[in-house]
C-alpha cells in the first residue's frame, strides 16, 4: 500500500524562517549600532572589538542563510531552520557573555528563542532546546563566576564582584529557568496541536479529491482507509459495508490490519450492539477495549494490538451503507475532535460509495440492454428474411405459374417486407448505437480507410444508377476517436443517401481534410435537395422530407438520426446545406485522435 499522503513541508516553517532572516538584519545592525553608541556616545566600558566582530558575524551568516534559502528547494527548509536556531543561540551566548554574563540584559532575548523553537524545530525537540539554553546560560554564568571565563564589567554602577555573588546568581538563574520552562510548556503543546489540525485539514482536502476522482470503489475505499489512519496516526482503519441482506457487515477495505484479523469472521449486526448503534447514525468511541463488553471478537482485537476504537457511520441518502472503524494503539486515543474529523471524511466516503455503486448498476443495466438488443436482432430478422426468401422464388414462378393479379399482390407483399426489414435494421442500429457508448471503447480509427471501404461498397449501386461517386482527401492520414463500425455507419448512411437521392447522371463527392485540429468530412451531391422548411427536422427520428417521399424513394427516416447520434457520441458536429433540385452538402466535423 503506497503512502498516499504527501504532506508538504509546513508552509509556516518556510515563512517563519524567512521572517527570522529578515529580522536578523536588524538584530545585527542593532548590535553594531548599540555598541557604537555605547563606546563613543556613552563611554561605556565594553569589549567593543569583540562585539563588532559578533555583529559582523551575525550579518555574514545571515547573508549566507538568505542566499541558501533562496537557492535550494523546500526539502531543505527544516535543516535551514534548525541551522538558524543553532547559530543564533551561539550568537546569543556570546553576546550574553560579552555584555556582562549574569548582569547582562541580553538573557531576556533567550526567551524569544524559547518561544520560536517549537515553530522552527521539528517534533519534540522543543523541550530539548529549552534545556540546552538553560545549560548554556548556567554554563556561561558559572564559568565567569569560577574565573574560567573573563567577566566584562559593562555596568559600572553595579558592585565589582556581583558576578560571583551566589545569592545574586541564584536569584537571576531561578527566575530565568522558571520563565523559560513555563513558556516552553505553554507554547510547545499549542504549536503541536496547531500542526495536527493543519495536517488533518490537508488530509480531509486530499481525501475529498481522491474520493471524487475515481469510480473504482475498492481503490477509493482503500485510499480512504489509508488517509484516515495516517491523519490520526492510528494503528489502522477498516471499512465495512452492509451486504444485500442487511444483516452482515462485510470488509470492503482496510489499512494497517493483519490478514488474520480481517479474516476472523463476518460481523453480524444482530450480535454487535456497537454496529447497530453506529448504523442508526450515532458514532461510538470505545476508550478501552479490554474494559468494554460489547465486542463480538474481544480476544482477536486485543491480540491485534488494538486498545481503543472509533466507529463512525457511512450514511447514504437512503440509509446506512456501512461502518468505518479507526483503531488506536493505546486506550483513550480518540476524542470529540477526532470523531468530528472522521465523520467529515466518512460523509465524503458515503457519497463516493454511492456514486461507485450507481455507476456499477448503470454498467450492468447497459450490458443487459445490449444483450437484449443482440437477441432481438436475430429474433426479429429471422422471420422477415424467411418470408422474403420464400416470396422471391414464388414471384419467379418457381412454385407454379402465376397470373397477373397474383403477381401484383406478391409484389406488394414483397415491398412491405423489404420496408419492414429496413426498419428493423435501422431501429436496431439506433438502439445499438445508443448502447455503444458505455460498452465499446473508442479508439483512434483511420477516417480515410473507413471512407474508402464505404465508397467501395457503394460503387456498385452508384454504377447501376450512373451516378459518379468520387472521393478526395488531402493529407495522407486522418485519425479520429470513434469505433470502426460506428464511423463506417456514419459514412454509409451519408454517402448512401447521397447516391440514393441523386438521379442518373448526377455526382457525389466525398471530401476529407484536416482543419484547425479537426477532421472535416464533406459529402456533396447533385440530387433532389431538401426543402428549407424540412431542414430543421432532418435529424429527427422517422422524419422524411416531403420531396423524398414524393419521388418514391424508399427510406425509414432513421438514417440521419443514427448519424447524428453517433457524431455526438464522438464529440463532433454535423450541419447541412441544400438547394431544392440542385443538391445537398453534409458537413461533419470530428476531433482528431492526436
Amino acid at each position, binding site marked *: 500500500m503506497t503512502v498516499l499522503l504527501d504532506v508538504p513541508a509546513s508552509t509556516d516553517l518556510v515563512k517563519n524562517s524567512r521572517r527570522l532572516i529578515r529580522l536578523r538584519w536588524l538584530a545585527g545592525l542593532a548590535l553594531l549600532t548599540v555598541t557604537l553608541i555605547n563606546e563613543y556616545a556613552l563611554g561605556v566600558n565594553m569589549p567593543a572589538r569583540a562585539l563588532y566582530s559578533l555583529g559582523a558575524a551575525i550579518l555574514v551568516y545571515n547573508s549566507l542563510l538568505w542566499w541558501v534559502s533562496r537557492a535550494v528547494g523546500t526539502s531543505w527548509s527544516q535543516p535551514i531552520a534548525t541551522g538558524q536556531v543553532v547559530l543564533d543561540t551561539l550568537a546569543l551566548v556570546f553576546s550574553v557573555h560579552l555584555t556582562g554574563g549574569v548582569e547582562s540584559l541580553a538573557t531576556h532575548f533567550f526567551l524569544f528563542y524559547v518561544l520560536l523553537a517549537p515553530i522552527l524545530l521539528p517534533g519534540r525537540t522543543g523541550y530539548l532546546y529549552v534545556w540546552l539554553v538553560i545549560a548554556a546560560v548556567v554554563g556561561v554564568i558559572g564559568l565567569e563566576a569560577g574565573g574560567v571565563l573573563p567577566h566584562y564589567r559593562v555596568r559600572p554602577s553595579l558592585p565589582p564582584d556581583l558576578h560571583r555573588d551566589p545569592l545574586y546568581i541564584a536569584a537571576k538563574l531561578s527566575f530565568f529557568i522558571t520563565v523559560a520552562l513555563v513558556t516552553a510548556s505553554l507554547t510547545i503543546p499549542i504549536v503541536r496541536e496547531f500542526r495536527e489540525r493543519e495536517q488533518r485539514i490537508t488530509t480531509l482536502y486530499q481525501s475529498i479529491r481522491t474520493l471524487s476522482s475515481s469510480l473504482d470503489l475498492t481503490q477509493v475505499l482503500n485510499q480512504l482507509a489509508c488517509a484516515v489512519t495516517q491523519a490520526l496516526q492510528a494503528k489502522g482503519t477498516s471499512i465495512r459495508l452492509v451486504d444485500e441482506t442487511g444483516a452482515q457487515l462485510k470488509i470492503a477495505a482496510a489499512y494497517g490490519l493483519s490478514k488474520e484479523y480481517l479474516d476472523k469472521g463476518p460481523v453480524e449486526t444482530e450480535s454487535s450492539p456497537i454496529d447497530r448503534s453506529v448504523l442508526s447514525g450515532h458514532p461510538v468511541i470505545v476508550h478501552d477495549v479490554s474494559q468494554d463488553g460489547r465486542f463480538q471478537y474481544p480476544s482477536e482485537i486485543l491480540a491485534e494490538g488494538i486498545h481503543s476504537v472509533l466507529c463512525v457511520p457511512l450514511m447514504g441518502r437512503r440509509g446506512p451503507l456501512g461502518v468505518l472503524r479507526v483503531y488506536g494503539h493505546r486506550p483513550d486515543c480518540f476524542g470529540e475532535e477526532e470523531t468530528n474529523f472522521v465523520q467529515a471524511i466518512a460523509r465524503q466516503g458515503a457519497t463516493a460509495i454511492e456514486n461507485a455503486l450507481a455507476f456499477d448498476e448503470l454498467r450492468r443495466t447497459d450490458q443487459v440492454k445490449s444483450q437484449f*438488443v*443482440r437477441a432481438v*436482432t*436475430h429474433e426479429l*430478422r*429471422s422471420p*422477415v*428474411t*424467411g*418470408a*422474403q*426468401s*420464400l416470396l*422471391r*422464388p*414464388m414471384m*419467379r414462378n*418457381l*412454385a407454379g405459374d402465376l397470373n397477373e393479379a397474383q403477381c401484383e399482390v406478391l409484389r406488394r407483399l414483397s415491398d412491405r417486407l423489404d420496408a419492414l*426489414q429496413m426498419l428493423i*435494421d435501422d431501429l*436496431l*442500429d439506433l438502439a*445499438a*448505437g445508443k448502447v455503444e457508448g458505455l460498452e465499446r471503447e473508442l479508439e483512434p480509427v483511420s477516417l480515410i480507410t473507413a471512407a474508402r471501404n464505404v465508397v467501395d461498397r457503394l460503387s456498385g449501386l452508384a454504377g447501376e444508377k450512373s451516378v459518379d461517386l468520387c472521393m478526395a482527401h488531402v493529407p495522407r492520414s486522418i485519425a479520429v476517436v470513434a469505433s470502426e*463500425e460506428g464511423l*463506417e*455507419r456514419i459514412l454509409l448512411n451519408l454517402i448512401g443517401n447521397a447516391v440514393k437521392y441523386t438521379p442518373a447522371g448526377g455526382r457525389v463527392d466525398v471530401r476529407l481534410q484536416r482543419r484547425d485540429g479537426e477532421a472535416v468530412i464533406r459529402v456533396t451531391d447533385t440530387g433532389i435537395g431538401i426543402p428549407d422548411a424540412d431542414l430543421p427536422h432532418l435529424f429527427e427520428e422517422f422524419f422524411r422530407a416531403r420531396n423524398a417521399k414524393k419521388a418514391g424513394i424508399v427510406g425509414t427516416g432513421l438514417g440521419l438520426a443514427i448519424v447524428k447520434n453517433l457524431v455526438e457520441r464522438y464529440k463532433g458536429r454535423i450541419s447541412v446545406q441544400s438547394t431544392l433540385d440542385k443538391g445537398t452538402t453534409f458537413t461533419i466535423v470530428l476531433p482528431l485522435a492526436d
Partner: protein
Amino acid sequence: MAKILVIEDDPDMVLALRMSLEGAGHEVFDAPNGKEGLQKLAETKPELIILDVMMDTTTEGFQLAFQLRNPDPGSPLADYSHIPILMLTALHSTTDLRFGADEDYLPVEAFLDKPIDPDDLVSKVDELLAKAH
C-alpha cells in the same frame, strides 16, 4: 444438374432454397442439423453443401464447416473435405462478427446473405460447381 445438400434448421428457408435450386434443375437433399447433415452427406454424396451459419447455437454452422474442412485423419469425413461449401449468413452490421472466406479460420468458398435472391443463389451455385471441376 447436380446433387446439393442443404443443412438448415429453418424449414421455410429450406423450401425457398428448394424452389430456386430445383427450378434450375438441381437435385436437393436437406437435413435440419449438423448431426443428420453428416449422415445425409455419407448417404447422398452431394457435389455442393449449403450451410446456414447459425442453427441451434450461434456457432453450429462454423463448427460444421471447420469439421468438414479439417477432418480427423482416418475419419469417414475425410472423403468429403473437397466438397465446396456455400454459407448462408444473417448478419447485421452492428454485431461484432465480420466474415470473409479466411483459409484457416473459416474455410468456406462463398457467402450469401439472407434474404436469398433466387438469381444470386443460382449463379453462385453454378460458379462453385464449375470451379470444383
